[in-house]
């Protein structure tokens, strides 16, 4: 056996390696494929953002014309949302959820592979508009009557690509929910599931129920554009506002699809680096469920200015209600930090960045929920500021927190901490420089989706600041990429449990073997690993109470050992 020469084997090995990744049905490999694919699209959409910001750096048309500008922000928004942030969070879900549940894989591994491979296909179709006379240019919301009348095949490719990406997410959602209900290890009751799993469960439910409605709308739009349909054409009995209802019936749950898993990541990272359990586990779970339910009854807050019998007070009130469970979560996080032994790792910094930036986005959101304010700032840069504080300051920060936190599990090596902190600080300062001035720009009346603007001194300086910030964000990615490459070459070995984690993914090797666990620790709480490593004596004596504080923990520890 040992007599085989090395060379032919390496060749064979290499081919097998590529094939292995192309045909894998292992949730961990699929998770990594999701994450890598999403980051590639993130960089593409980020370059488009730099194009947009460069055009807006100073008044006047620099190097784009109106139409290419429209394409640039449309592709930027579409790709960021549908091909970066949603799939990257699904990627972490794919990798982590089965591990945290103590399961060997997802419930339907082959469907899992299919839902991944639809993504690059859909994404490339959306981008391919650039090859056929111009990409879609009606904004990520693609409002009628702009979209049903727009010339060119770019919008059709956008529709087909999004329908594929949507199908991928629906299949993924079926898979997540089934996994969570059917694949939990013995002892892993629903209320012992890690918070990240809970947020994925609610997110998957939102995807399952909201995305098909967008698919229906996309089909209607396609029929209008290509088969003489008149869903959205008022001249033959259609109704352009109908598109907005369909789009936002999906679109508002969609914003929670984007933020809830990010909240889940933060709720994993904060307790570990505060050396305390999450403050108010059950309250957090119920707040997540409440947000999920409410998110289906607020869609028309995106349509306040369309007028008509839109029940403004109802939608405004429901929107304000969402502030309550969201506020509960803020207290969960602050309570977790309070008197914790804080460890400012890179993952922790990004989690803290999430909390502070999401708070700002939440405040501007509550402002927008009030129709009298919304009437003034609708379609201005105030909205652009708001959406980036929640999407970028929220979810993208959480994605980086997750990357620093789970990278050691995925690859067995820890990312370099000093480089991680450099990444964080450039990113954080650049982010605020890029987007905080947009609040002011919006209040000063600058509309969004314009390629050129009036040469007013106040607008000029704010726009210039914003462009500098955008380039700082781009620069911050350099230490991150260096970090990833350097860690692959020569990173510090992580061991199984580098952070003294609470949850089951840290109970197996880094990276885990194909079927994840040779043996599982007993599960008597939402922190099975904590109790294993810190010891509470025999399982029978382990407190079932989920809400115990740090002092209590310490007491138990002393008492039993």
């Amino acid at each position, binding site marked *: 056996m040992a007599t085989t020469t090395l060379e032919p084997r390496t060749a064979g090995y290499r081919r097998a390696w590529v094939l292995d990744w192309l045909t894998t049905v292992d949730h961990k490999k699929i998770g990594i494929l999701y994450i890598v694919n999403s980051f590639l699209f993130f960089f593409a959409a980020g370059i488009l953002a730099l194009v947009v910001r460069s055009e807006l750096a100073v008044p006047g048309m620099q190097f784009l014309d109106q139409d290419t500008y429209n394409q640039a922000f449309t592709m930027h928004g579409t790709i960021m949302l549908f091909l970066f942030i949603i799939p990257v969070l699904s990627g972490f879900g794919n990798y982590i959820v089965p591990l945290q549940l*103590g*399961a*060997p894989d997802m*419930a*339907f591994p082959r469907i899992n592979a299919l839902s991944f491979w639809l993504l690059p296909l859909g994404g490339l179709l959306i981008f391919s508009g650039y090859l056929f006379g111009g990409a879609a240019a009606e904004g990520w919301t693609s409002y009628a009557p702009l979209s049903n009348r727009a010339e060119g095949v770019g919008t059709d490719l956008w529709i087909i690509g999004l329908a594929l990406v949507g199908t991928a997410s*629906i299949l993924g*959602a*079926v*898979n997540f*929910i*089934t996994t969570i*209900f*059917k*694949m*939990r*290890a*013995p002892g892993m009751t629903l209320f012992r599931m890690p918070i990240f799993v809970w947020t994925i469960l609610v997110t998957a439910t939102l995807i*399952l*129920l*909201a995305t*098909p*409605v*967008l*698919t*229906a709308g996309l*089909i*209607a739009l396609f*029929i*209008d554009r290509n*088969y*003489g*349909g*008149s*869903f959205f*054409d008022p001249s*033959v*009995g*259609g*109704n352009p506002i*109908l598109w907005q*209802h*369909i789009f936002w*019936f999906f679109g508002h749950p969609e914003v929670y699809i984007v933020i809830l898993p990010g909240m889940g990541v933060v709720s994993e990272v904060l307790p570990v680096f505060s050396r305390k359990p999450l403050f108010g586990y059950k309250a957090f779970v119920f707040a997540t469920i409440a947000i999920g339910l409410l998110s289906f009854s607020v869609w028309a807050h995106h349509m306040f200015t369309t007028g008509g019998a839109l029940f403004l007070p109802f939608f405004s009130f429901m929107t304000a209600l969402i502030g309550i469970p969201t506020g509960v979560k803020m207290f969960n996080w602050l309570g977790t930090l309070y008197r914790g032994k804080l460890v400012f790792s890179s993952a922790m910094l990004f989690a803290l960045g999430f909390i502070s930036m999401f708070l700002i986005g939440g405040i501007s959101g509550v402002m927008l929920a009030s129709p009298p304010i919304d009437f003034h700032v609708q379609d201005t840069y105030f909205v652009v500021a708001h959406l980036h504080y929640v999407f970028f300051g929220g979810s993208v920060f959480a994605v980086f927190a997750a990357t620093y936190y789970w990278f050691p599990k995925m690859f067995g090596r820890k990312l370099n901490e000093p480089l991680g902190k450099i990444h964080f600080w450039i990113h954080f300062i650049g982010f605020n420089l890029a987007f905080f001035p947009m609040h002011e720009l919006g209040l000063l009346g600058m509309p969004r989706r314009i390629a050129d603007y009036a040469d007013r001194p106040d607008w000029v300086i704010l726009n210039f600041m914003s462009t500098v910030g955008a380039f700082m964000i781009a620069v911050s990615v350099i230490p991150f990429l260096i970090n990833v490459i350097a860690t692959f070459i020569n990173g510090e070995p992580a061991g*199984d449990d580098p952070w003294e984690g609470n949850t089951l993914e840290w*109970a*197996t*090797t880094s990276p885990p*073997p*194909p*079927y*994840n*666990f*040779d*043996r*599982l*620790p*007993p599960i008597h709480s939402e922190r099975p690993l904590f109790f*294993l*490593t810190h010891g509470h004596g025999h*399982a029978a004596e382990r407190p079932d109470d989920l809400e115990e504080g740090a002092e209590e923990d310490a007491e138990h520890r002393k008492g039993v050992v």
Partner: protein
Amino acid sequence: MTAGTMQAHPAGEEEARAAITHGQSGMPTVMVGMLLFIASEVMFFGGLFATYFNARATTVGEWGPPAGGHLDIALAGVLTAVLVASSFTMQFGVWAIRRGDAGKLKMWTGITLALGILFLAGQLYDYSELGFGIGDGVFGTVFYTLTGFHGAHVFGGTVGLTIVLARALRGQFSARNHVAVEAVSMYWHFVDVVWIGVFSTIYLLR
């Protein structure tokens, strides 16, 4: 391939094995997946129905096919009967295999498939007779979209039935092992229920 460096709890090994064999009771995993998928399909048709009702509500004047076109309610009624009957035949097949009667399963699945194909053929014939198209006003658009996407789902169901029939002919189902039959039948009932909704909305409610 040794994972888990922590000290094994005595019960750990057993528990791990139980997890790997998906050792959980309740509804089979495939059925949970199918139910969830159907939930998403309900929302999809919900979206299409919303377009229908929106168009109907915003139309001033008479609601119905454009001048020169008509609806064939008699044919649609017959097709409804065909599809509803096929739900029963499907269920007879399921009951048969639950008793372990693979022969009856083959028969009932074959009949169900034939009824499904008959429905699709009838729908295509209906389309050719109506005298209006998808581009003829908003009624034409919503009519063909709703019935067309329902038809596409019936087609999907006949593909599922064909697979079930092929597997039944190879003797792959038994009283204990026939989850594919259960799943396809659930989908088929769903498609039937959607049709009852489409038929009542378009032909009865007007």
